[in-house]
């Protein structure tokens, strides 16, 4: 058992390193959050979602705004100028230290959730528990996105983990309270909501093979209660809030293509159009490919058919449905297996929406990596390997967030460190599989190793060599494009592998049930 004092010791030790990153580069998100501090503190509640003094308007749900209000009260103690609505781009040491400190403090929720999880199953050794705690609190993606780039994800993932923990340990109502609260902090978590919904409906509301209305109402009340708390004060302004929360003016992909299916789609379009122009199959008059210009706006594809939001939604839903359907229709006999399948469903839902979603940010991959960390410890040997590859590729795909020289150095070092740490959980003596010696297996391992080697080589080439070549001026987007394409191939493979593991577990379950039935 990892004791609470040990947990505190390790968390504060890791937090010290985050303090060391205070002077690091910060993105415009820093100003976004500073502006929100100002809005929530200086304006009346009803104006929060109308304020447009800055271009960074409030576009998170109300709970997050309440949290910013809470922070802003503390901010006034530190420095009055932080909460001035018109004091745009304020970057004094006070505000930097204050805001970075709030990120570290709010991340304690994640640490606490990790601490809870380390006590989930007793079969793990002390070292494993410690290892899991460390993997959560030193998460490479959060270091890059929260502590350098600047956002509050650590806290949100803490809530997600807590909600999963309570659901896994049989406190479904508390778990759904946490999840509803999470949705009201950041609505992007709606991507994993299907897994939560289906699991709660099938394994909580259905009791003793029939639908338990009381349980259903309990659950519903909990969720509605949280939503009323959150949106209640804004009851007359809901349309305005929703227009802020769900903007549809943006394009299919972000300025840097998040490594998903659409990155591959854009890439194919680009290649085909380049070839087409070379052999003058298509006229070069067409507005040359705006996807590869790094702009955030709606673009049309040159050769391939253009994608509409509805297509991406349909595809996302389609890709999720097999796992959701299976989770609903074929329950296992053991509770532990069901919970494991629930974790897998969360992992799959987030991964599917990342791969097929509309205007996905590269940061969203952390939403897959965090639940996979749990599976890496409670799943099989394959889950550990999947987690390793997933975090390796996923965190690598976050690299373009930090583009100045110090950031480049830090991202590489942090990534290496975390990859090594997560590699160490994979047992050195692999499970003796039957197909271990087959040629197919050997080829797969070789391919995987080659692929894993390609990522650091890609990084070294583009940060050390590329700027000296003459391509660097004419093709500035090339490094980003290749990084994104390279990562999307890996993540697509992870999606397939994750699906395979999901159905494998279901299959094992069925076999077990059959055996039990025979014995009876």
């Amino acid at each position, binding site marked *: 058992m990892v004791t609470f004092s040990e947990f505190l*010791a390790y968390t504060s*030790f890791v937090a*010290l*390193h985050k*303090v*060391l*990153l*205070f*002077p*690091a580069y910060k993105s415009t998100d820093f100003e976004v959050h500073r502006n929100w501090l100002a809005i929530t503190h200086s304006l009346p509640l009803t104006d929060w979602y109308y304020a447009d003094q800055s271009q960074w308007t409030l576009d998170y749900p109300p709970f997050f705004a309440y949290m910013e209000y809470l922070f802003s009260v503390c901010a006034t103690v530190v420095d009055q100028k932080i909460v001035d609505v018109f004091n745009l781009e304020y970057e004094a040491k006070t505000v930097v230290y204050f805001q970075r400190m709030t990120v570290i403090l709010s991340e304690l929720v994640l640490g606490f959730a990790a601490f809870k999880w380390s006590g989930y199953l007793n079969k793990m050794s002390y070292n494993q528990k410690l290892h899991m705690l460390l993997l959560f609190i030193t998460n490479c993606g959060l270091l890059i996105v929260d502590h350098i780039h600047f956002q509050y994800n650590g806290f949100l993932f803490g809530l997600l983990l807590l909600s999963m923990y309570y659901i896994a340990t049989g406190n479904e109502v508390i778990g759904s309270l946490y999840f509803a609260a999470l949705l009201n902090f950041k609505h992007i978590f709606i991507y994993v909501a299907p897994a939560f919904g289906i699991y709660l409906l099938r394994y909580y509301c259905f009791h003793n093979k029939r639908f338990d209305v009381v349980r259903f109402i309990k659950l519903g009340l909990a969720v509605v209660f949280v939503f009323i708390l959150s949106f209640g004060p804004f009851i007359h302004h809901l349309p305005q809030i929703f227009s802020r929360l769900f903007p549809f003016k943006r394009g299919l992909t972000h300025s840097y293509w998040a490594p998903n299916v659409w990155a591959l789609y854009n890439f194919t379009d680009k290649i085909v159009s380049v070839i087409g122009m070379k052999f003058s199959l298509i006229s070069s008059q067409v507005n040359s490919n705006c996807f590869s210009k790094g702009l955030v706006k709606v673009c049309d594809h040159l050769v391939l058919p253009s994608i509409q939001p509805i297509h991406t939604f349909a595809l996302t839903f389609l890709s999720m449905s097999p796992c959701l359907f299976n989770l609903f229709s074929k329950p296992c006999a053991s509770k532990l297996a069901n919970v494991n399948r629930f974790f897998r469903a969360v992992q799959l839902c987030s991964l599917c929406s990342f791969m097929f979603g509309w205007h996905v940010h590269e940061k969203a991959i952390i939403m897959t990596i965090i639940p996979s960390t749990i599976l890496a410890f409670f799943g099989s040997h394959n889950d550990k390997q999947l987690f390793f590859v997933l975090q390796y590729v996923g965190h690598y795909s976050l690299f373009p967030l930090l583009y*100045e*020289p*110090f950031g480049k*150095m*830090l991202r590489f*070092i*942090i990534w*290496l*460190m975390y990859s*090594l*740490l997560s*590699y*160490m959980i994979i047992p*050195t*003596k692999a499970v003796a599989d039957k197909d271990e010696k087959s040629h197919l297996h050997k080829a797969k391992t070789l391919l995987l190793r080659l692929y894993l080697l390609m990522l650091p080589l890609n990084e070294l080439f583009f940060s050390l060599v590329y700027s000296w070549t003459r391509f660097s001026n004419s093709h500035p987007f090339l490094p980003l494009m290749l990084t994104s394409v390279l990562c999307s191939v890996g993540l697509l493979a992870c999606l397939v592998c994750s699906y395979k593991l999901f159905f494998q577990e279901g299959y094992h379950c069925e076999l077990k049930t059959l055996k039990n039935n025979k014995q009876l």
Partner: protein
Amino acid sequence: MMKTQQKMTYLSILHLIYSMFLRWAVSLGSYSGQGKYPMYGDYEAQRHWQEITVNLPMDQWYKNSTVNNLLYWGLDYPPLTAYHSWICGQVAKLINPEWVALFHSRGFESDEHKFFMRATVFVADILVFYTAVLLVHTFQRRQSKASGDGPESPQVLFSYSMFFLVYPGIILIDYGHFQYNNVSLGLFIMSVAMLDRRQNFIGTSLFCAALNYKQMELYHALPMFCYFVGKIFKLNITQGVKTLVILGVAVISTFTVVWAPFLNVESATNVVSRVFPVGRGLYEDKVANIWCAVSPFFKFKEIFENSTLVKMCAVTTLLTSIPSCLHLTLKPTMRNLKLTLFNVSLCFFLFSYHVHEKSILIPAVTACFLYCKELSLPVSLFLHFSVVSMSPLLFKDGLALQTIVMCCIFIAIVRFEFSSTGEQAGSFLSTITKTKTSKFAKKVSTKQKLAMFKLRKIILTNLTRLAWLVSFLLMLLPLVKSPPARFPDIFALFTSIVSCGVFLLCSAIFHYVQLCTDIQI
């Protein structure tokens, strides 16, 4: 067994990358003299040397002239530093000629340039310092295999070399303040590692190279000399002469190679007069040595002439160095060499003339060699206070956050990787008292002895905790309160006095360890 070996390898690599993370995280901070027109600081000095060495012919490097104003950060380190600057300067020229343009580049500052400069430190670190630490590490690992220690020994062994890599002093000065101490100190570590392997020729040349990078390595020259004198006298005549010839060839050849371009009378005197400036004061800023610490009570600077002071310093330094040096000459073992290196360099720091705050790094790096289970308490205390003693300097560079955080991290690592303060105190006490108790063993009963030991352990543990607390108070005080107008340096002086006290205590402890105990290191 195989499995633990593999795991240890992963852990070692993880530690290596972790230490690189610390370095780059600190390097995000400001450097000495950032934006401080017209003189800037050590960062500008290093950049200026690149400018000079790239643009001027060699014989002009150390010479005052219309193109090389020595009053503006003239080169004052031996030739190896100049060569290093030349290499960095060539790379800088390749990337952006503006960085090293003669005259026009003075005070050049930009984010890219800052990154470039930090990267040169990192490259030097990897090539010299990390290599040196790996040499130490592999030697210790091989030795433990030969002696067949328990399965947990690799971890303990690794911890020793970790001390070199996470010691905040070097990281803060090189990556924060900005200097290349890692090169000279790395060469020194390498030379000791080579002497450990009985590679006297390579060891000596490496030490000469360290000397030729920074003259401050002279702090270590006396013990090296005594070690070899002792060694040679232990051997028979033919063997002795052979060793003497080998060492002589090593020293002379290294010096010739390094000084080759300056081997005419005029250039050589130029270099020497630059490298050893006489006529600077007893100390410049507040430094944690004896002369500065007693200054509030006894003003040496005002009472004595400068030349008298130089003599006084020389005499006291030599007198305090004699006990350990004599011991080493009589018993020239590696254990005694390491202890003497520490004791003598600390005496030099405490008593010699014109000492910089940064010179504490020299005994500090030597202290890393002395880490063992029994001595972990004094070693970590000394290393911590060596950083504290530099804190006024670091705070001036705007590195207060980094300094305090790195100190916390260091203490935490000592606790996590090694043991708690209580355990440290226990193992320290039991070894210190071992030799004593044999004399009194008959007089005191075991029960009483045990009670005494417990009491002492509690006192020592709490004293150490008090020391940690005081050190942090000393660092936080200048951040919270501004000093009274009459004594602007009062906090720095406090820090120096307290640190000097701790250093004196450490000096006493390690002299005692060397002369009166047989702790193996």
